[in-house]
């Protein structure tokens, strides 16, 4: 079982990110479960969503409390919400930011994780350039593929195309591709802290 928790703010597509990830997992033959921690929260409020990927049927329906990976769509949440709570010692962290992990003030924390398991990705900038709107999902999910090696980029692309038809889908795919390429160019495996923007 591989469990991902996604933190963001209402309107950023937190729930959609979990759904896309589950579709990508399904594309690769996994059993996948995406569940929102849905509330009547409005735009801008902290939101969390979960995605599980597994080799066999997923029966438990509890929220993910010890994730294998955490995606943080909005770095301003770092000091508001316990985003790393329960993160497994070998877990992954992906943060949507054009700043570095040290600049975000979490360098020390991510140093405890295995090498290459934490990264920042300027996903919003990528989205603005490719999609024209600050929707960081596609890039972040590609980034997750890159740092975890759990899913193939093609599956993420297929999920994006299933959820977003036509031009919007293609633009998101372009953002995802660039994000993946950024990680391919950076020596993730070498440094403890991948920083895609450094490329």
């Amino acid at each position, binding site marked *: 079982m591989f469990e991902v928790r996604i933190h963001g703010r209402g309107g950023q597509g937190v729930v959609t990110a*979990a759904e896309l990830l*589950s*579709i990508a997992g399904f594309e690769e033959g996994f059993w*996948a*479960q995406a569940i*929102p921690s849905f509330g009547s929260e409005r735009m801008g409020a902290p939101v969390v969503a979960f995605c599980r990927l597994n080799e066999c049927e997923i029966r438990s329906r509890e929220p993910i*409390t010890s994730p294998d990976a955490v995606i943080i769509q909005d770095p301003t949440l770092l000091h508001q919400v316990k985003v790393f709570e329960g993160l497994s010692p070998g877990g992954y962290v992906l943060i949507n930011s054009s700043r570095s992990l040290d600049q975000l003030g979490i360098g020390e924390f991510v140093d405890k994780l295995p090498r290459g398991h934490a990264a920042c990705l300027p996903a919003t900038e990528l989205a603005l350039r490719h999609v024209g709107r600050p929707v960081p999902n596609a890039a972040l999910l590609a980034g997750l593929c890159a740092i975890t090696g759990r899913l193939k980029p093609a599956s993420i692309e297929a999920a994006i195309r299933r959820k977003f038809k036509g031009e919007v889908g293609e633009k998101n795919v372009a953002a995802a591709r660039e994000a993946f390429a950024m990680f391919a160019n950076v020596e993730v495996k070498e440094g403890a802290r991948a920083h895609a923007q450094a490329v």
Partner: protein
Amino acid sequence: MLRQCEGSQAVAEAIGLCRPQVICAYPITPQTHIVEGLGALVKSGALANCEYINVESEFAAMSVAIGASAAGARAYTATASQGILYMAEAVYNAGGLGLPIVMTVGNRSIGAPINIWNDHTDSMALRDAGWIQLFAEDNQEAVDLHIQAFRLGEELSLPVMVCMDGFILTHAYERVDIPTQEQVDQFLPPYEPRQVVDPDNPVTIGAMVGPEAFMEVRYLAHAKQLRALELIPELAAEFKQKFGRDSGGLIRSYRADDAETIVVGLGSVNGTIKDVVDEMRNEGIKIGGVSICSFRPFPTAALSTALGRAQRIITIEKSLSVGIGGNVSHNLRMALPDRNTTVYTVIAGLGGRPITRASLKKVFRSALDGLLEPVSFLDLNLPVVQRQLERERLERRTGPAAEAILRDLNTLPAAVH
């Protein structure tokens, strides 16, 4: 076709395949995506020959469904929580008239305090309305139960509620096999009403009945539900034959044959229960689970067989019958031939409180150790309650208790974990 999609979307598509003729739509979280999905199917023409009516309340939703069903159309609506209470009078009316309306309930708690998250208080509040109530364990079963519900309801002339856990199922993306139109058509014939409002053969429907016959009329409603106890497994068997899936039926047992301890639950919590059962079986504990799919009619005989040999039964209940404890355990005692069987009622998951494997395991262990109270509340923060009781003892105007408890907890709002 096997798909990864949202539960509500899957259910909307399944209902579309059942060729409903009148759909009444009124938004209430968390069922809204279902009627939205159906609206898109009707508007796009994918679901033809269907009237999609945006009503002004849940009471109107059920009332329009009553008119449509009585006039011979296959009628559907969906609701949740306050919505089912707002339509309660019409829910009973549809039950009393024996109109085979199918309604999805995206199970959600009932206020006050207002709370949009999942529990079973809404369906339980209408358990005696003369409707069949089926609870889905996962989204595949939610899809399948809707298809069975139309067939079941129309054969018996009874309305059917398909209950699926709000958010946990309605908003969950998971793998679902959506059947083909041909498969559904083979299973579900067109609606042939037993009574119909028709100018060519005018009858009076819904007139007053006095004390001389009311008891018999009500008994007939009961007898029809007892007939459903036979029909539900028959339809589940036929469904399996045609669709290749085990879905529905009265109850489903999981590793319960030799179990000394059996955990009983309704709906999606059974998935989590099964995982805990496996964990504890690995530790050598003879524990099993029984999932109740049909809560009305209540499968007394089937449960009696399934639970007969257990020494202790633990019900995980997502509704609180205030002042007594559990609805499920209360009903379940009717099914226990051996009155010495200990029944533990565990109220859990109210208002969307997560039911975790760890907490379940802890509570099962304490039952095994004989330490569990007859009625207990999973993960209840008792000190907080006690402090509030103490405040109320010391002071008259303590204000809204719900606010005081949250101030005491000093937590962020609920959507934040």
